[in-house]
């Protein structure tokens, strides 16, 4: 088939291909049928023409033969018996009486053949108005010796039919003459004595041929030896035109060829243009007896093939109707096939817009049903996938790494994250003095500040595959070891904590440059069994941890000072040998009966090699102690009136206070420098009491750790550390 452009619809493609093929087959069959039918019809016509022509020819010949017999008989008689000029008349008269077809008879003699005195001797009898009349032909003006009817037989010695002619009387009657020469035998030699003739009217010939009906406009005609029309339905051709003059006039050499064939007495069947109408015709021709004339029958091709053409037209109509019907069926079929595809296409559009509930009808051809089923399955899968994705994203998206999300999405039970008890490492951190610092800042700056801090912290946590359970303000709760199992969650957590502390230095550098103040972060790390899972309702779910160990970690965190990492004994246990410990703190925690030892982490040894910057934390004993006022803090609220105290020794993390002796272990205090002049730049410290001992003079000496240092105080401490 011819190539179908790829942009066409299914119906168009089918019509072009199937319809084209069908049309081709139809046209082939149709053409073949036409050609064969045509050939059959023409063969039949040829046969029919042949029979018709021969039958007419025989009829004419029968008449002519009858006429020919009379002059032949007279000629024979003339050869046997010499009759006188007067004796010829009764012979002619009798012959005319017995042969009513004959119009006239002449017995013409050679000059002086009857008597030496008689140059002309040609008695002629013919049917006049009042019966048979006689005339003696031959005068000086009517010299019959040179006329065709006499001369041709004389010169050829043969009988012959003349060319037809109109009768002498100027009448309308077409005549022809048959001439027979007669001879006398003188010794061995035959001498021409004369010529006997019979004239006949050819009117009957015209009637005979006019009666020949060939289809509607077909006809028969006769031409003479010269090709002249003796009869033809068109009178203007008769005795005027010949086939040859027509050939010249119509400039159709084919007619001349046929004409030559006809006057030579051939039979044949030829395709010609009709002499009058110019229409395509078939001509059958055959000679007419001994006359030398030729009979032709014209069969107009259009009428001849009318049946074939009619049949062909009907077939064409049926074929075209069939093709149209087929196209309609193809269109309907194609629509039937493509309708579900269109629905599918619409559904796909719905799918594209996020409506996964759209369903394609599972009807139609099996392939289409299959496709629809696959599509519907796709919709369901997408729906499930999106549900799962949304869940995982909502649950973890912001707090776990993309890698974890991906793995959860891929896992078959990624959504089946029910609660489970598992050993994890929990980390809690917050910034010291953040609230105090930010209370006087513009909200925009607070957000900028917090975001800078949190984004860096979250980045580090993600790097360590931590799950961030909660971020409240500056505080972060994260855990390691879930949802994916993690063998070294304690190590990861500590490593992460170290990195976070190190990052604080960069953040502070930037903050200080922008005048945002110095901040320090405390981090607590604890390992233990907790319940982990999806916590919340349908509407809002969080993958988080709960349990006593979480609370414990919170308490631990309150013991940290800025820049410090404290780990619980359980974490320490898991990391002994790797960890580079700092001081150990024995603390009493709320809700925990026995004191707990917390370990400060300074770094991780080989192969991790992460260490906090070494800080000079040797206590500087002050020659002139700093006078301060201390305020007790109970449940995060500063209470009571200030009491005087003295800072006798200090380093960046802790100090030794001497006061009147009412401090308790683990108590939180606010310490303000007593010589405060500018309240806007108050030199304050938040501290926790770590040890208390009695000193002489009813005094107490308390070791305190800073949990927050006001920037102004920090400056003072740095000056002291630098000076000594």
């Amino acid at each position, binding site marked *: 088939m011819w190539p179908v452009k790829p942009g066409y619809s299914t119906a168009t493609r089918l019509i072009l291909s199937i319809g084209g093929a069908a049309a081709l087959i139809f046209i082939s069959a149709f053409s073949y049928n036409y050609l064969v039918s045509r050939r059959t019809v023409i063969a039949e016509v040829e046969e029919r023409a042949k029979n018709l022509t021969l039958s007419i020819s025989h009829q004419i010949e029968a008449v002519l033969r009858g006429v020919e017999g009379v002059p032949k008989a007279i000629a024979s008689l003339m050869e046997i018996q010499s009759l006188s000029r007067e004796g010829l008349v009764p012979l002619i008269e009798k012959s005319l009486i017995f042969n009513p077809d004959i119009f006239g008879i002449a017995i013409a003699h050679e000059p002086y053949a009857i008597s030496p005195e008689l140059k002309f001797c040609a008695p002629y009898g013919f049917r006049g108005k009042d019966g048979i009349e006689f005339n003696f032909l031959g005068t000086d003006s009517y010299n019959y010796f040179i006329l065709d009817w006499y*001369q*041709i037989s004389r*010169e050829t010695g043969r009988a012959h039919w003349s060319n037809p002619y109109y009768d002498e009387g100027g009448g309308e009657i077409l005549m022809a003459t048959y001439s027979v020469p007669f001879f006398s035998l003188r010794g061995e030699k035959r001498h021409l004595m004369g010529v006997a003739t019979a004239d006949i009217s050819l009117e009957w010939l015209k009637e005979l041929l006019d009666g020949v009906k060939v289809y509607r406009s077909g006809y028969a005609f006769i031409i003479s030896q010269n090709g002249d029309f003796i009869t033809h339905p068109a009178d203007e051709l008769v005795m005027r035109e010949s086939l040859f*003059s*027509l050939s010249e006039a119509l400039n159709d050499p084919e007619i*001349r060829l046929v004409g*030559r064939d006809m006057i030579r007495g051939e039979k044949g069947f030829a395709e010609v243009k009709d002499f009058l109408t110019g229409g395509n015709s078939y001509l059958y021709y055959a000679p007419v007896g001994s006359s030398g004339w030729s009979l032709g029958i014209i069969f107009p091709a259009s009428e001849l093939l009318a049946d074939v053409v009619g049949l062909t037209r009907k077939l064409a109509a049926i074929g075209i109707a069939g093709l149209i019907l087929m196209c309609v069926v193809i269109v309907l079929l194609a629509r039937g096939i493509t309708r579900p595809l269109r629905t599918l296409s619409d559904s796909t559009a719905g799918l594209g817009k996020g409506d996964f509930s759209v369903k394609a009808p599972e009807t139609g051809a099996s392939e289409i049903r299959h496709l629809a089923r696959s599509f519907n399955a796709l919709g369901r899968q997408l729906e499930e996938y999106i549900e799962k994705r949304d869940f995982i994203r909502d649950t973890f998206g912001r707090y776990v790494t993309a890698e974890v999300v991906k793995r959860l999405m891929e896992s078959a039970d990624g959504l089946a994250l029910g609660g489970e008890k598992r050993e994890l490492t929990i980390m809690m951190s917050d910034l010291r003095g953040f609230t105090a610092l930010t209370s006087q800042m513009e909200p925009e700056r607070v957000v900028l500040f917090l975001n800078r801090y949190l984004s860096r912290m979250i980045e580090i946590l993600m790097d360590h595959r931590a799950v961030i359970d909660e971020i409240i303000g500056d505080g972060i709760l994260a855990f390691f070891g879930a949802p994916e199992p993690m063998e070294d969650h304690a190590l990861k957590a500590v490593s992460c904590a170290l990195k976070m502390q190190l990052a604080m230095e960069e953040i502070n550098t930037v903050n200080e440059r922008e005048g945002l103040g110095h901040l320090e972060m405390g981090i607590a790390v604890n390992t233990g069994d907790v319940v982990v899972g999806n916590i919340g309702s349908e509407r809002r779910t969080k993958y988080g941890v709960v349990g006593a160990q979480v609370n414990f970690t919170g308490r631990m965190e309150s013991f940290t000072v800025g820049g410090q990492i404290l780990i619980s004994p359980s974490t320490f246990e898991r990391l002994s040998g790797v960890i580079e410990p700092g001081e150990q703190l024995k603390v009493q925690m709320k809700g925990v009966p026995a004191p707990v030892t917390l370990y400060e982490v300074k770094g991780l040894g080989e192969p991790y090699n992460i260490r906090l910057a070494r800080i000079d934390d040797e206590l500087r004993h002050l020659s002139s102690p700093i006078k301060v006022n201390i305020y007790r803090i109970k449940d995060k609220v500063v209470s009571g009136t200030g009491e005087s105290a003295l800072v006798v020794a200090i380093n960046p993390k802790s100090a030794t206070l001497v006061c009147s002796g009412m401090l308790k272990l683990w108590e939180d205090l606010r310490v303000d420098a007593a010589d405060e002049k500018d309240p806007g730049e108050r030199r304050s410290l938040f501290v926790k009491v770590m040890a208390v001992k009695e000193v002489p003079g009813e005094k107490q000496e308390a070791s305190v750790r800073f949990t927050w240092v006001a920037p102004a105080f920090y400056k003072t401490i740095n000056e002291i550390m630098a000076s000594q």
Partner: protein
Amino acid sequence: MNLFLRSGVDAASAMWYNEYHQLINAGLDQSELTTFLLSDYGMRFPEDGIYCLEKTCLDAPSLCGDFAAASVAGWEYCFSHPDESLDIVMKYVHAAKTATNRVHQKWMLERMKDIIRFEGSPALGALSVNSYMEVASELKKGGYIEAVPSYHEFRFEPHGVARP
């Protein structure tokens, strides 16, 4: 011509503008005919002329002159209006039931034109002295005439001046 066509004779004299074409129109092809043109054998005779009695000529010379001039004009008209000429001829052919046809009449007209108006032909109606003398001497030689009349005796000049 029928005698020739029926093989009654082997040769026939025929006019180029008439019988020759009749033979062609009776189905003989040019290639089947051997022609001997008289002009090729020194017999280039002017054929047709208008003749009258000497008396008529002397009695009504201008009438005769006009008649000849009208004939010439008639020929000129026919040559320049062949279709109209043929229409007129065929009208009479139909009326008289003459056994001829338009194709033949056309041939005749065209051949007449060829014969009369060839390149370098004398003016229509003119008879040169040379032509006259050539014909007359051939006729005398053939014994058809005893004496040759002078050109001026033979040719009537209505205005008394012979044209060359």
